[in-house]
């Protein structure tokens, strides 16, 4: 057993309580330790990706208990990719949070950040369905804290909705697990795959109910229409960096759907094509509603939130094929849409910090400070989100169109993807021209500009409730914030430039997913030396 497999869970699990207990009054120390821990997780994730890249599936048996009884952590290509994506996004966005000063708008930002990463990493690694539930709860409870970081009436109201919606989702998760356990008598994912495949066809009605309940739970996390109602208000009202980190949260649902419906309930078993038949219309509806939302929103945060929703829809169209080309395209688009949505949320926060009164409403206001750079970043992020060349969204969308050419609903899929992209382009152009161009018609801001940046600010956490955004004047280092946003855009450029190797990795990952036998064998066979 390779003990590094558990490091992505253990590192944040140690660092977060350490931050709360022994450095709660020293923000500088918190920042250093937390950024170092996130960087360490990125390094570990990259090392694990190197480990998984040879195609072998690694198993970590917690407490060295034998497989269907003990909990296992699994590392395959998909899990390694998700770990790298989560840690990479978290590191960049965390630097943004330092630069913009968001992390001192309230208490315990860094501790919650680490707990959030612990939940994410655990959810990607675990090979046990109930353990997945536990890690979902860990990442959710940390996200509740992060979501209302900084306070304010509207944020708290949106936060309560988010919590209630996800609590209902968790309840449904338990119901699904109970149903599946009652039928199969196991919750280990590899063991479930074996038991489900052996089930006589006449006895599978209850199992199918469990599988569909499970899909509903993951659809809530993914925010598929009609279970998306929590997303727009939550993402629009969350602090900018937190919304950017949440770009990976919807991907946890996508990951769980891919994992369960390729491993446990593949399309040649009891579920037949049921999963695809439910997911595909939902994905198309998500895409349409997301892009119309981009066009119809009057608030920049909502524009970004609906753009994130639409990208999940595009991604799920690829997943719903449950065949190798569709999965390849979906894996590529998952990397891209995480970077693109993260970048867009950060740019929106940059704009909010610079506009008069922190207003994110789409109406002309006097020109903003550093308008040129921010406008360029918005342009790049918008191109990425809309899936235009030269950034990585274009090959991603092309791959999804290519993969669905032979599908049953090919014409509908192509029409929806292409027409909705047009709506998104129109909506994003409207938002950009309102914010950046109409500003010049108003002339320069008659009010005095924001106070010049002071480098020697006192660092203790400064709680200013009732603010939607962080003022530029409170920003510890605007340059770091701009650089971090630029880094996400650069990530999209790099993904487009180094598309070949990434596409190869995605292809190998999809091959591993459509053939679950080695995964099952890795867990259930070769158990020498276990208790």
């Amino acid at each position, binding site marked *: 057993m390779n003990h590094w497999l558990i490091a992505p869970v253990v590192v944040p699990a140690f660092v977060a309580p350490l931050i709360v207990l022994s450095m709660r009054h020293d923000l500088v120390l918190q920042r250093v330790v937390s950024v170092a821990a996130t960087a360490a997780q990125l390094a570990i994730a990259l090392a694990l990706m190197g480990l998984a890249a040879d195609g072998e599936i690694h198993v970590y048996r917690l407490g060295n208990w034998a497989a269907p009884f003990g909990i296992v952590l699994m590392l395959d290509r998909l899990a390694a990719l998700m770990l790298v994506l989560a840690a990479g996004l978290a590191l960049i966005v965390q630097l943004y949070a330092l630069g913009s000063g968001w992390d001192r708008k309230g208490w315990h930002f860094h501790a919650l950040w680490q707990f959030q990463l612990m939940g994410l990493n655990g959810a990607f690694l675990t090979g046990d369905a109930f353990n997945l539930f536990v890690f979902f709860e860990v990442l959710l409870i940390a996200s509740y804290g992060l979501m209302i970081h900084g306070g304010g009436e509207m944020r708290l109201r949106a936060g*309560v909705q988010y919590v*209630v919606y996800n609590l209902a989702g968790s309840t449904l998760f338990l119901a699904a697990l109970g149903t599946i356990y*009652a039928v199969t008598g196991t919750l280990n994912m590899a063991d479930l795959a074996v038991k489900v495949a052996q089930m006589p066809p006449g006895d599978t009605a209850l199992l199918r109910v469990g599988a569909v309940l499970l899909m509903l739970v993951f659809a809530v996390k993914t925010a598929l229409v009609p279970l998306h109602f929590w997303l727009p208000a939550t993402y629009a009202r969350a602090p900018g960096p937190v919304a950017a980190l949440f770009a990976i949260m919807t991907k946890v649902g996508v990951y769980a759907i891919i994992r369960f419906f390729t491993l446990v309930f593949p399309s040649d078993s009891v579920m037949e094509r049921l999963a695809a038949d439910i997911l595909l219309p939902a994905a198309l509806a998500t895409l349409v509603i997301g892009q119309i939302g981009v066009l119809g929103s009057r608030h920049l945060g909502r524009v970004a939130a609906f753009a994130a929703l639409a990208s999940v829809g595009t991604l799920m169209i690829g997943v719903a094929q449950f065949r190798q080309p569709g999965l390849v395209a979906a894996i590529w688009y998952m990397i891209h849409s995480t970077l693109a949505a993260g970048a867009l949320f950060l740019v929106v926060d940059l704009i909010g910090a610079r506009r*008069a009164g922190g207003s994110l409403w789409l109406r002309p206001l006097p020109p903003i400070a550093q308008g040129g750079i921010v406008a360029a970043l918005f342009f790049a992020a918008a191109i990425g989100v809309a899936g235009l060349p030269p950034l990585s969204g274009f090959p991603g969308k092309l791959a999804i169109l290519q993969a669905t050419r032979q599908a049953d609903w090919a014409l509908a899929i192509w029409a929806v993807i292409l027409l909705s992209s047009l709506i998104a382009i129109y909506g994003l152009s409207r938002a950009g021209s309102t914010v950046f161009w109409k500003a010049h018609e108003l002339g320069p801001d008659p009010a005095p500009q924001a106070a010049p940046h002071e480098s020697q600010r006192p660092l203790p956490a400064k709680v200013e409730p009732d603010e939607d955004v962080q003022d530029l004047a409170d920003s510890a280092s605007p340059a770091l914030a701009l650089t971090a946003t630029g880094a996400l855009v650069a990530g999209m450029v790099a993904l487009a430039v180094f598309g070949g190797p990434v596409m190869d990795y995605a292809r190998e990952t999809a091959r591993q997913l459509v053939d679950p036998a080695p995964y099952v064998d890795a867990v259930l066979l070769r158990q020498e030396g276990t208790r």
Partner: protein
Amino acid sequence: MELLIAIAIGALTTAGVYLILRKRSFAVVLGMTMLSYAINLFLVVSGRLVVDQPPILQTGVDRYTDPLPQALVLTAIVISFGMTALVVMMALGAFLEGGDDRIDMPGRDLTGAPRPGPPAQGTAHGTPRQPGDAA
């Protein structure tokens, strides 16, 4: 026994679903609690109903109750307890900040209309409101 448990789970779920569809946060929190009770009961019986048997598999013992659902339900109880505490605190925060305990977003979430109420709201933190500000 089975019938009794099934009726209990059904009644709790019905009450829970009805309550979480209410628009006041207090009723919603109660509804979440009901739902989690229902699910906890459901988890206990997912290992089949066995009465007066040990949850341990030993040689010579052929009747036993499944220990795993009991472990699952303990975890679920702890988590739902923590979550209920959290949602109560957040709902209380939203009530104190917003002045009412409605669970839905007010209309000004979509329009950006200023918040109704005492006009001195904006100057409470010492920064004058600027033109175009949106509450």
